């Protein structure tokens, strides 16, 4: 069985991701140690909270030098995906630069945070095999990544934003697959099979 490591840098709810993988029969390891991260077959980069303090912690433990260069498949979840971008408007934070895009604050005529289940329009990707177009996923966020050339899934909330991105071995989803019932579980299963 492949070795799955959840990058644990103190960014909130990592237990839910671990439990979701357990439901798929995978016992993931939580770690912020470079040698363990480098030895993984699959990496998950979660994140809940605030971008600036998360990046400060990532820099403190030296993960800013590791994550952008990993060669394994790596899935960023929620703020994890945002931290994979260039820059976030959330307290003007420089991020990891894996996706050359900027993260913006929602300025729409809707309630913020965008919280609840919303539909995702998908493009072709192995990550989304067996998931229907306009399948629903659970979102909780106040900042978003605009639609861009890496987007393989988009979502509407006052504007159209990136729900899922892909660049080589890097993937990101703005929603929480670990909380998105069968569709989320299918996405995680696809990721593990890549």
């Amino acid at each position: 069985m492949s070795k799955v490591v959840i990058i644990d840098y103190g960014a909130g709810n990592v237990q839910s991701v671990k439990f979701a993988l357990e439901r798929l029969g995978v016992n993931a390891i939580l770690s912020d140690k470079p040698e363990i991260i480098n030895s993984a077959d699959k990496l998950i980069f979660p994140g809940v909270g605030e971008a600036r303090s998360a990046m400060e912690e990532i820099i403190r433990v030296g993960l800013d030098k590791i994550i952008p260069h990993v060669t394994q498949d790596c899935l960023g979840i929620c703020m994890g995906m945002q931290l994979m971008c260039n820059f976030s408007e959330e307290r003007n934070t420089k991020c990891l630069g894996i996706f050359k895009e900027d993260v913006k604050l929602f300025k729409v005529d809707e309630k913020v945070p965008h919280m609840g289940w919303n539909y995702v329009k998908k493009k072709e990707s192995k990550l989304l095999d067996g998931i229907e177009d306009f399948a629903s996923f659970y979102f909780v966020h106040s900042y978003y990544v605009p639609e861009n050339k890496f987007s393989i899934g988009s979502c509407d909330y006052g504007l159209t934003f990136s729900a899922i991105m892909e660049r080589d071995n890097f993937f990101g989803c703005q929603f929480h697959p670990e909380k998105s019932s069968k569709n989320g579980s299918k996405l995680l299963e696809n990721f593990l099979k890549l």
Partner: protein
Amino acid sequence: MLTKRIIPCLDIKNGRTVKGVNFIDLIDAGDPIEQAKIYADQGADELVFLDITATVDKRKTLVELVTKIAKQIDIPFTVGGGITSVEDAYSALQSGADKVCINSAAVRNPNLLNLCSEKFGNQCIVLAVDAKQINQQWLVHLVGGRKQTEIDLFDWVKESVERGAGEILFTSMDHDGTKNGFANEALAKISNLVDVPLIASGGAGTKEHFRDTFLHGKADGALAASVFHFGEIGIPQLKDYLKSENFEIRIN
């Protein structure tokens, strides 16, 4: 488009549900996890667990419960009933809860909302408020509705959002248990007053009541207990109905 949320609520005491749930094929009617799994499979969008355990070791029992739920449930869930400090909130969120709901403790110590939202983000802080109309004024009540205060509902909701509440769960004590519908007038007023999501609670009796609270109460979600527990309204039927009434509803 964001979908309207249907939220069953389970009352827990010492790890068991208090009001029995009337499901066919349920092996253990007191096991909250079994009940929660059925609701999740039926299409519930979210779950709320209110822990009314009154032991000294409350935090430990809450953590055990939250861990059990998080292991088995793949939809978001909120826990409440015993969150009186930042440490309580931390324990619940760290164990896998998506949100914590704070009720009386926030009235007694409003700063708790500031502290929790600064530490965890406002998206996981739900302000639960019970209120009753007395002489034309909606007054906040504490300890499960047993203690009246002189605090105006709308003032309190507004203040709580300014302090960091990221969602409002409003229960009308005048409507709770009546099965005559939600307090839509007060709900609409709250919805216009603050820009965080609003969950309607108290009064669900028919499918039409859910439609009305989304339409007239401007609620983002609706919470109910007994109509779901006793099978009076099935979640799949409710969602099909709301879809046919042209609401955005999660079916798949």
